[in-house]
């Protein structure tokens, strides 16, 4: 079973939820797809690390063979190519590595050269295989790294996908294979606003989902109001707590430290399992 954990903004508790959920499973794979700022590994401190490069293919023009027909420039929907001063110019950071120019060139004047844009790091913590996607600083898109991270899932283990924040392509890629989505949201006005963006995405992609309302305080819970009104399934509410914040800031895994929190996450996992089984 694959569970994707996502949220409309950063800092709501995606990694908190993902790490703890993975830890209460018998056997789990934790996939950190937040490749711009992966931080699950800070909690797991995984051992026996192996690394694998993620590369993309970029076109390289052989100017001896190019006859300037411009078919590649016209074809490129991303506008990554320009024809200037009799030569094709490639804008690497605009290129989406679709290989279209390479395929369309009548002169076979385009070669594809690999370029490393990041890596996938795999290690272990107790029952959890910890997989971390890491994008090189300055790269434009993390999607190819996310694809590599997702390949590391395990059919006979619970796979927890820690998504990037927001609702962009990287998130769509991350949740595509998920059996269930968990949206983590804060109980505030801001929380509701950001929740709605992701809510639209999971609804559009027809993903079964539930909500964890995190950092709940007694005086205000607009997320609960919204969910009640729209019959959205709240899986769990986690109170705002000094203790939890402290554990998190120390890089500790809450379910390993607190029986109460452990019970909550065991319960969350059971609820999700029964939702998926339907």
């Amino acid at each position, binding site marked *: 079973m694959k569970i994707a954990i996502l949220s409309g903004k950063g800092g709501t508790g995606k990694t908190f939820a993902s790490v703890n959920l993975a830890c209460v499973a018998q056997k789990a794979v934790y996939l950190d797809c937040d490749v711009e700022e992966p931080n699950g590994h800070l909690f797991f401190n995984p051992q026996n690390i192996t690394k694998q490069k993620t590369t993309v293919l970029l076109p390289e023009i052989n100017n001896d063979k190019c006859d300037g027909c411009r078919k590649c420039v016209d074809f490129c929907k991303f*506008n990554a190519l*320009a024809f200037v*001063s009799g030569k094709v110019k490639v*804008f690497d950071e*605009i290129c989406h590595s679709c290989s279209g120019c390479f395929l369309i060139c009548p002169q076979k004047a385009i070669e594809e050269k690999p370029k490393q844009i990041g890596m996938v790091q795999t290690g272990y913590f107790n029952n959890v295989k910890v997989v971390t996607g890491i994008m090189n600083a300055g790269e*434009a898109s993390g999607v190819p790294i996310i694809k590599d991270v997702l390949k590391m899932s395990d059919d006979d283990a619970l796979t927890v996908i820690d998504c990037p924040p927001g609702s962009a392509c990287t998130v769509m890629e991350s949740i595509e294979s998920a059996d269930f989505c968990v949206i983590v949201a804060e109980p505030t006005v801001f929380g509701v606003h950001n929740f709605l963006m992701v809510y639209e995405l999971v609804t559009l992609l027809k993903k079964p989902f539930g909500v964890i309302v995190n950092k709940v305080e007694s005086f205000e819970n607009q997320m609960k109001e919204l969910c009640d009104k729209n019959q959205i399934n709240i899986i769990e509410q986690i109170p705002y707590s000094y203790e939890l914040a402290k554990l998190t800031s120390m890089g500790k895994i809450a379910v390993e430290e607190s029986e109460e929190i452990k019970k909550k996450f065991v319960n969350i996992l059971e609820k999700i399992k029964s939702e998926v089984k339907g």
Partner: protein
Amino acid sequence: MKIAIPVDEKRMDSPVCISFGRTPFFMFYDTQTKEATYFDNSAFNTQGGAGIKASQMIVDEKADVLITMRCGENAAQVLKDSVKIYKSIEGNAKENIDAFENGKLNLLTEIHPGFHNHG
């Protein structure tokens, strides 16, 4: 000499468009014939690389000069071999052309890193 200007509307007294790559139209003004022609900017709606595509049009139309409020670095890369970029001043397209012809425009020196919003 041919001058290109991103414009909001297809007329000589149109405001200069605040965006180069995503302007709806380009005006090409011929300083010899004093005639202006207008082109739809095919990069107007494009997802990414608008500056590159718009610049390709400027280069293909053989403009010598571009007058614009701002220009990104990818666009500047395409333009640099054949087009001189001048910074527009307050006023409409016609006033900018007059200012250019009277030597009152400065070369655009601030090339911004782009407003790319990759998903």
